[in-house]
């Protein structure tokens, strides 16, 4: 398949792996955080760690939109979904995310009308087709998906579709990275920067990471060679004593981002003073809500939203996993009480969650696998 296979070439990967190994200083251990859950997924799905020397470890970051949704927001969404005449819509990833009282799938089985959509415009179409129902789109995601939510709200306003609203849970990536950098219990050597978010925000917003924190960051694409190349470029910077923001994903990410997309977000949304992140707690200026001028499309204004606050289950260590402090398997309930079928934490739900990726793709002992795959 064109534009895919060339980024999954095993020969190129082997050559790159040799260069990565050659760059590692003997006796030194390297830790790079892949901020985005999409990268985590790629790393496990393609078995990318097989190419890394043992002294290079990848730490999974907070960039999984589903993973950072606090349980209380899930309960709020279910409370909206269970109101009369409501059709709740969301991306498939949200369906199994546990709240304090079950997930969307459970609410659906109890009778709520909850539908999976592939785009907020599909939700708008449902609203158009069901004028006697109130259609709510549960919006999640970083700056990647915020423009399409904003566009949909603008379209709803232009077409005067009065039975459509958005339950906005969009978050922004920079405050999350800053929270990680300020966290005392983590020592990182560099970052693999999120690719899709950067198509919108560009590379400039990361510059403080190099200036203020002295860490390199390489914005990377989502194919396995992209990620391997980002590791290589980080190591090259460290070897040369440089600390810079680099763009490996130039085929998609412009240095200055996408001004039109940013303008659309800015038209419809504004920063919330503070927002709760699962595992990371409240972070100021880290999330978006719908502006006053689009109030009639804001589910938080249209509906009575209970504003549930639910403490994460005690056993769950998603917060530590999201911050990269714990590897998924180091969590006490990983793989036993918390599995993809019966997730306790969000990291076990989304295909981009570190725990789900590790459980589904990477859960084996490397030595035994080496034996098994020896042809």
């Amino acid at each position, binding site marked *: 398949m064109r534009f895919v296979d060339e980024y999954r070439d095993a020969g190129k990967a082997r050559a790159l792996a040799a260069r990565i190994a050659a760059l590692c200083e003997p006796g030194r251990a390297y830790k790079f955080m892949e901020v985005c859950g999409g990268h985590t997924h790629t790393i496990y799905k393609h078995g990318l760690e*097989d190419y890394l020397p*043992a002294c290079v*470890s990848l730490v999974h970051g907070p960039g999984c939109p589903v993973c950072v949704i606090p349980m209380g927001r899930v309960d709020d969404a279910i409370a909206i979904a269970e109101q009369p005449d409501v059709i709740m819509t969301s991306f498939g*990833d949200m369906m199994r995310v546990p709240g304090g009282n079950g997930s969307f799938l*459970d609410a659906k089985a109890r009778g709520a009308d909850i539908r999976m959509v*592939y785009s907020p415009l599909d939700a708008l179409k449902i609203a158009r087709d069901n004028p006697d129902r109130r259609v709510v789109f549960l919006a999640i995601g970083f700056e*990647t*998906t915020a423009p399409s939510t904003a566009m949909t709200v603008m379209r709803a306003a232009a077409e005067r579709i009065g039975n459509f609203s958005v339950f906005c849970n969009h978050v922004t990536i920079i405050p999350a990275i800053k929270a990680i950098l300020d966290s005392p219990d983590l020592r990182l050597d560099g970052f693999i920067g999120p690719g899709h978010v950067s198509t919108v925000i560009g590379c400039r917003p990361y510059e403080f990471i190099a200036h203020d924190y002295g860490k390199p960051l390489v914005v990377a694409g989502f194919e396995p060679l992209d990620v391997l190349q980002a590791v290589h470029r980080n190591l090259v910077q460290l070897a040369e004593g440089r600390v810079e923001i680099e763009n490996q994903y130039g085929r998609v990410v412009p240095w200055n981002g996408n001004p039109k997309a940013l303008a659309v977000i800015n038209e419809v949304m504004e920063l919330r003073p503070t927002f709760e992140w699962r595992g990371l707690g409240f972070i100021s200026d880290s999330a978006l809500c719908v502006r006053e001028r689009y109030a009639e499309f804001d589910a938080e204004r249209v509906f009575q939203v209970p504003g549930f606050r639910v403490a994460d289950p005690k056993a769950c260590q998603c917060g530590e996993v999201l911050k990269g402090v714990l590897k998924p398997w180091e969590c006490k309930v990983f793989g036993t009480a918390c599995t993809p079928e019966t997730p306790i934490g969000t990291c076990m739900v989304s*295909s981009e969650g570190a725990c789900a990726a590790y459980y589904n793709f990477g859960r084996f002992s490397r030595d035994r696998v080496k034996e098994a795959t020896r042809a």
Partner: protein
Amino acid sequence: MNRDEQVLNPAPPEAQDRERLVLARIERARRARPRLREELVTLAHGAGGKAGRTLVEAVFLEAFRNPLLEPLADGAILAPGTSRERPDAERPVERSADGRVDQAASAPALAFTTDSYVVTPLFFPGGDIGDLAVNGTVNDLAMCGARPEHLSAAFILEEGFPIADLRRIAATMAEAARAAGVTIVTGDTKVVQRGKADGCYITTAGVGTVAPGVRLGASEVRPGDAVIVSGPIGEHGVTVMLARGGLDIEADDLVSDTAPLNGLTARLLDACPGRQVRCLRDATRGGVATVLNEVAQTAEVAVVVEEEAVPVRPSVRGACELLGIDPLYVACEGRMVAVVAGDRADAALAALRGHPLGEGAAVVGRIGEDPPGLVLLKTGFGGTRIVDLLVGDPLPRIC
């Protein structure tokens, strides 16, 4: 790639030991009989993954338990002379570990199976619910090593369903039955109020005969065996997903792979006599990945699959790539996984490729000893990963 050459600074041994302990704990948890925790049926229970298996074991197996049902295979093999009260009374029959009857010393036995069909949309490129209802049950019989003979067909129809559509479905079923060499000999029709069903649901049951000497089952699989798939995978599932509309993805060359596999299995059993075909499974709900997991867990073996050897048409790969799903989990309705003795792999492949439905057959992997119960994939990129049972529906990723 030799990993040892790269290791400059191995991870501290105590971390490796801890990880190994955790993995062992997880394997124990995974083997424990899963508990059914839900109070209501959710869509996840119908998606062919772990949740569905748990529901069947906790509710149906618990209530109906008997040696013929216990393997939860595609169909049951009824030994000649089997009576309800004393299954083994009339003549001693040898049973394999998974409850299958050993036909080595017996006369032809009866294979019996049933399946329900609830596809949306009812008509899709390459077929309709009628094809599925006949081929699906024919294939369940074929996977038992049986020669399918007779089918029943029961219809649940929604008030207001067009008779013209029903005629069309019946005509397809008649044609599919003719192609598979079976006759539909009994049936039933129920009509429910508008809104109580989605147009038309069909349940078919089938019987067939199993020749003496045939014994198939996942428990027959052993290390050294070869894993074959009979053709490009995922076409039915992707076709139906696209036919539902709403995705705005077009793939003109994609049609469902629905087909009767009894011709193919007969050829294969002829080419590899004497129990050299260990196990046959049609890769329906949950796809090839689910079949391989069942084999790995039942036989307590490792299944090692080469991603690049798995045949997938470019349009299926493209659609799966866009939707963020793995073709290994996508349903087929005319493809099977065959595990055969390692030294008969070439003969098996030749036999399959000699049949129009097996032209694209390929050896995709082999059976190993360790780690037992796991399916490992050597990725095209050159890494290794697990292929686990799917949880819930294959959901699209969002960004």
